[in-house]
Every structure is written in C-alpha cells, then in structure tokens.
C-alpha cells in the first residue's frame, strides 16, 4: 500500500516537473510526414517555425494563419506586391471619390470559390460587413471606419467611409480584407474556402499543412502543384530538415548564428532582406523613472546598437532609429538622433538624479529577447543603471504581466505587424503607455490626408516618437531564408502577412 502511494506520488511529481520545465519553452508544434503526392518537381516543402492553432483568422490571432492562407487560399480585393505597393487582386481597378470617402471597385467576373460558388460583389459586401459583426481579433477595428457597403452590380462594389482613411485601403491588403463565400464560412477553423490559387488539401495537426493548386483558379496558375508547410519548433531540427532534404526552403531562419553552414555550401541560396519586425526595447512611459524624458534618453545613448546586434543576432538585421522599416514610403534614417555616447548617458542620468536606479527588464523567453536582454543589461549597467533581468514564458506569462498589467519598466519584443507605429504608440492604454497628443495628431492627419500629406505627417510622427525617446529600437529583424538552389521567386523583403506562393518556381 505504502509503496503504491509513493509510486503514484513519484509519477505525479515527474509529470508536474516536466510540465513546469516545458512551460518555460514557448511556442506550438512541429513535425514531418512524407512529401505529398504528385510530380516531385512540382512539389515544394517549406519549413516554418510556428504552426497555426486554428485556420480561422477571424477568431484566432497570430501571424501563422495568414502566413499560410492569405493570397494562397484567400484572395483580397487588393494585395501588396513585393515593393509594398497596393495592386489589383479580385478588384481589377478602383476609383476614389474626390472627398476620399467613397471607393468604387470593379471586380473580376470569373472568380470561383473552392465550394463552386461564383465570386460576386454580394460576397465582397458580406465579407467586409462580417468583420464588424463576427470577427473577434483586434485587427477588426481597421474596418470601424466603413460606413456603408453597397452592391452596385454583381461586378461592382462601393464602399463609403465615415472619414477619409489611407490606412483603410492598406488594411484591405491584409487578412481583414480576405474575401469569403457567403455560403462558405460554417467551418473556417478547419475548412477555409476562398478564391485563391491554392486550396487546403490536408492539415496534419502538429505536423504540416498541405495546399494543392486550384485548377479552376481565375488568374495565372502558380508553378507548384503541391506545397507542404512543415512546422519545426526547434531551430536545429529545421536546419537539419533542409540539410537532409526533407524540406526545400527554410521560410524564416530561427538561429542566424547557424547560417554559416548554408552560406558556404553551393547547394543552397541564402536570402537576406528586411522584414516588418522591429525589435523594440519598450519603456513603461507612464511609470517612474521613465516619466522623465532624460532617463529615456540616457537609455538610448547608453546602447551601442551595432555591438548589440552583432552579439545577439549574429549581425543580421538593420539598425533603425524609429518604428518604421525601410520598406515603408515614409522611412527616414533616424539612427543618428541617439548615437552611442556613454558620457552623455551618464550625465543625463545624473541630471535627472536617477543614477543607480533599478530597472526591471522583463523579456519574453524568445531567443532574440533573451540574448539581447543580457546585452542591454550589461550596456545599461555601464552607464550607471541597475538592471534586474526577468524572463517570462511567452506568450502566456508575458502577455499577462507586461502586456495586460504593464507590470514592467522595460521589455524587449519584436512587433511584427506591418505599419504598427500607431498601434504600439498611438493609444495610452497600450502596454507602452505612451501619451503624446502631438504624435497622435500627426497620425490622424496622415490617415485622413492626401498621399502627399500622409508622407509628410508620417515622417513627422516617426521623428517625434524617436526624439521623445518613447522607446529604443534595437534593430529590425532580417527576412532570412535558405532555399535549395534553383528555387526562384522568394521575396527579398518580407512586407505582407502572407507567404505568397504564386511567384515561386523551380528552375
């Protein structure tokens, strides 16, 4: 009897401690099956890190879902090309009224959903209206500005906004603009139905998602007949899968220090460009000592960004001085505003009377945040700060502590959404707790103005943000991919939310 109970206790302790140990590791799942059927030359297997939790991006957040489905399974009225321009998709052309309130879209005639229904303006109106009524993820608010959606004819749609908004058309290129069939939204979590060049063939949970070429696609047919997305939690397993031929492409390199094994190998191409992922050293702007601008400035002067990027991300990435990646039209190089200057950092800190102040740097347990956190700590300590570095399990613990409760002084997180300067710093209730009316006005003016005004106001906003030292920008994450030689069409810069398969081919 006694040894039975001891044994039970042992088992429970073992399970509990495994859970405790693993709950410190972030993320979702992984795995591999055999390659899909069909002509081997027309099959592509892409290795990625994060698997979607569900296929329904109307109700589940996360970049992994649109990465696979947007532009591939779902079309929008408009899409982003590799240079970041808004180009036609299901809308062949569109006109904007002079008051910039009404958009008239001409739609393609012969697009069909994978459930056999023909795409019409009715479906487009249904999809846009459905964002307000049925979506739950936060991005739905980009449709708040829509006042009325009118079906003019089966191939013409008119959208009226309550105020002019440049951001609205841009957001139509993202998942919020995906077009659904009126009769095809019953089972979005497992059975997505779109008009795109691919359809979902199979989702092997914890393992892979297989897309198959849609042979009744209305546009130019893509090269690959079958595309497998395979998910690898472990960066080494992802690298090994390419080295042993299980996959053809590493979609996002998770460990840049491991790139050497591919750069020196003639069998592979390494692609490096920019992404939308700004690695932000965020400050809690509403809480002392960061309510004092001099302390924020001292932090920015105290960080040697080049050295930091070399140490914690193998020198791969781009230094940025504000919340704008170089692929946005209003990008300006602002890295000169706060050059590395230890003496200045020390004197600013002294002036503010905060020498020796303790900052809680609470980072998510993600590779870049953990390694950069250590560098930030040691650099700030040289300038006279004391830094307490905490690692929080991502996403759950970090979201609760830093994001929801703002119980932190500094954190490090990569904000990956395109054009997210307004989301991250525009609202005082966001976790950065940044409240600057001049900055908010510039954002509003940019959204409502002409394109020329938008450019001016966005530049102004980005500069204001940086001068005010609302945060520090450690670096911009690179778009790093490795592919078998001969795979063409992979984008240099990652701009859209989608891993767009249509330009890809094998030479």
């Amino acid at each position: 009897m006694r040894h039975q109970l001891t044994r039970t206790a042992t088992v429970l302790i073992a399970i509990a401690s495994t859970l405790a140990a693993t709950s410190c590791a972030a993320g979702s799942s992984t795995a591999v099956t055999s390659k899909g059927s069909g002509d081997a030359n027309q099959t592509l297997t892409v290795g990625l890190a994060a698997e979607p939790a569900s296929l329904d991006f109307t109700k589940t957040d996360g970049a992994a879902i649109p990465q696979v489905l947007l532009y591939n399974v779902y079309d929008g009225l408009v899409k982003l090309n590799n240079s970041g321009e808004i180009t036609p998709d299901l809308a062949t052309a569109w006109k904007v009224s002079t008051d910039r309130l009404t958009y008239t879209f001409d739609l393609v005639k012969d697009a069909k959903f994978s459930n056999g229904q023909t795409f019409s303006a009715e479906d487009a109106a249904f999809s846009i209206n459905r964002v307000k009524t049925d979506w739950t993820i936060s991005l739905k608010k980009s449709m708040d500005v829509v006042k009325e959606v009118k079906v003019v004819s089966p191939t013409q749609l008119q959208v009226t906004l309550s105020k002019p908004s440049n951001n609205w058309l841009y957001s139509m290129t993202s998942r919020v603009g995906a077009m659904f069939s009126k009769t095809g939204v019953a089972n979005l979590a497992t059975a997505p139905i779109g008009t795109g060049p691919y359809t979902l063939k199979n989702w092997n949970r914890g393992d892979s998602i297989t897309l198959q070429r849609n042979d009744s696609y209305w546009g130019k047919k893509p090269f690959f007949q079958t595309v497998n997305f395979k998910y690898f939690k472990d960066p080494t397993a992802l690298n090994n899968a390419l080295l042993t031929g299980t996959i053809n492409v590493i979609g996002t390199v998770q460990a840049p220090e491991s790139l050497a094994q591919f750069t020196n190998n003639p069998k592979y191409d390494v692609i490096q460009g920019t992404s939308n992922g700004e690695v932000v050293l965020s400050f809690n702007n509403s809480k002392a000592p960061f309510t004092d601008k001099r302390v924020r400035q001292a932090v920015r002067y105290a960080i040697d960004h080049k050295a930091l990027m070399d140490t914690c991300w193998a020198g791969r990435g781009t230094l940025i001085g504000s919340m704008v990646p170089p692929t946005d039209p209003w990008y300006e190089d602002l890295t000169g505003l706060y050059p590395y200057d230890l003496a200045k950092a020390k004197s600013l800190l002294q002036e503010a009377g905060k020498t020796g102040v303790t900052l809680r740097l609470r980072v998510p347990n993600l590779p870049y945040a953990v390694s950069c956190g250590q560098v930030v700590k040691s650099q700030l300590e040289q300038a006279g700060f004391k830094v307490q570095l905490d690692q929080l399990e991502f996403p759950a613990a970090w979201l609760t502590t830093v994001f929801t409760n703002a119980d932190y002084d500094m954190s490090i997180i990569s904000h990956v959404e395109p054009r997210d300067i307004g989301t991250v710093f525009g609202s005082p209730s966001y976790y950065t707790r940044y409240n600057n009316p001049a900055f908010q006005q510039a954002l509003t003016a940019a959204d409502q103005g002409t394109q020329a005004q938008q450019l001016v106001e966005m530049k102004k906003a980005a500069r204001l943000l940086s001068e005010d030292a609302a945060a520090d920008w450690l670096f911009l994450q690179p778009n790093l991919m490795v592919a078998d030689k001969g795979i063409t069409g992979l984008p240099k810069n990652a701009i859209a939310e989608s891993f767009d398969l249509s330009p890809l081919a094998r030479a």
Partner: protein
Amino acid sequence: MTLRLIERIAVLAASLAVSSILVFGFMSVLPGDPARVALGVNASDQSVASLRAEFGLDRPLVSQYFSWVGGLLRLHLGDSYISRAPIGPQIADRLQVTLWLVITSMVIAVLIAVPIGSLMAVWHRRISGLVLSAASQVGVAIPAFLAGILLITVFAVHLGWLPANGWTPPAQNPAMFLKQLALPALSLGLVQAAVLTRYVRSSVLDVLREDYMRTARAKGLRPMPALLRHGLRNASVPVVTVLGLQLATLLIGAVVVERVFVIPGLGSLLLDGVSSRDLNLVQDVVMFLVVAVLLVNFVVDLLYVVIDPRMRAGGR
C-alpha cells in the same frame, strides 16, 4: 487473492481521485489567461472577457472541477480552447504515434538489457564484466534528448543513412516509417537499456547467490544454463517492477524526444497545449498519462502473482 484485488482497486481509485485534484489545481495556478492568448496581443478587454465566459473560466473553480471530472467519467473529454476541436480524437491520434515510439524503445531496452545484464552478473569478477558495467554507467548519465542529438548528427547529417526527423504513419509508407522510427526509438531505448541493465545485473547477482543455484551448479550445470533454467524467473520479479516504472519514464522522456525528432505525438500535443494555455487539452492529456501509468502499475502488481506463485497466498 480476491481481497488483494479489491485492495489494489481501492488504491487505484483513491490515487486517481487525488491525481485529478492535483492536476486540476496545478492547471488553475498556471499563470496566463487562455482567452488572452487565443485572442492575441491587441484584443480588447471586452472580447477577452466574453471568451472567458464562453470557455466557462468565469465560474467558481469547484464547479469547473466537477464538470471536468464528470465529463471524464462519461468519457467526454470536451473541446480544445484554441482549435475548438474535440480532444478525445486528438489524444487517440497522437497516442498511436507515441505508443509506437514507447513500445519500440521498450523492446529495444529489454533486448539489450536482459542479455547484457545477465552477462555482467555472471562475469561480475571478470574485467569484461567491469567494462560492461562502466559502459552502462555512462549510458545512465546521458539524457535521451542528448543521445538523440548525437545520433542525428552522426547518422542523419554526416552519414545521411537515416532521416534527421519527421514521422510517417506505418500504413502510408512502411519503409519510411521504420527509417524515421529508428533514431528516436534508439535514443530512448539505449538510455533505458542502460538503466535496466543495472537492475538486471543486481537481480541476477542476488539469484546467483541463492541455495538452489548452488544446487544446480553442483548437479554439473554450467553458470549460464543454470541461470537460464532456474534463475531467470526468480530474477524477473524486481525487473518487471522496474519495467513498469520505466514505462512512466519513457512516456515522459518521449515528450522531449518528440520535440528533438519533430514527431507529432502526445508530447508535442502537450507542449503546444501548455504554451497556448489550452488548459482543457493539457488537463486531459496529463490525466490520461496519469491513468496510463497507474494502470500499468496496477497490472504490474497483478503480474507478480503470475510470475511468483508464492504471492498467491496473499502474504508477502
């Protein structure tokens, strides 16, 4: 015998009840909000609150506990918070994968440990016995995931004999299935074999010192045949106990090895669930593992009686 069985069943039921409370308690103190994780960083507080209500997370803990256990008793495992898919089929799906891994590595462990452990015992005064003993000591010290990484580096990346990772169901492509199973099963099996070898050795050593073994040798049997004919059955009682315990270790070791070899088994399901705070799913998987381990122990207890008729009298 009947009394013993009733006693065992009562212990099993009590252990299950206590475990369910511990598992549930552990889940409810885990930091992080499933609804917040599901909705992502920019979700409004209202939508988080309404999702919490949809998940039933706003009810008192006691009522949550009883509706969970009530569901389990009716074999109704509920739906996952995140994927909204029923949990039962997901566990069944992943279990098929993990069982192959666990059973194969168990077989590997036994096939290696029983002959080598017996040899070590028979040769325990010779140099070769010492060498084997030292080798098994090294094996005990290596965790399975490290063995896995070493095996991948040598056999997959450098020699290219076997795939580095992945999983194919046996029905889909049996050859690929065996190739992909080989390395993970070996990394779990070798480490378990090292542990098991040491138990086999000491158990056989004990048996070798028994009077009936001396009698067997006196009759003229050589050491190995004597052991095979008279000793093994006696030596197997403690070894079976350890095997039962090892099954638990294997299930848990598989969690990590599945990650290293990118295998979609129960372990990856559990890890994903923990990370996305899919508490329903995690609770069910952990409870399933607990039930499996307790049942194995229960069966092992009954097995003693089969192996050793002396225990049938009820005394020990």
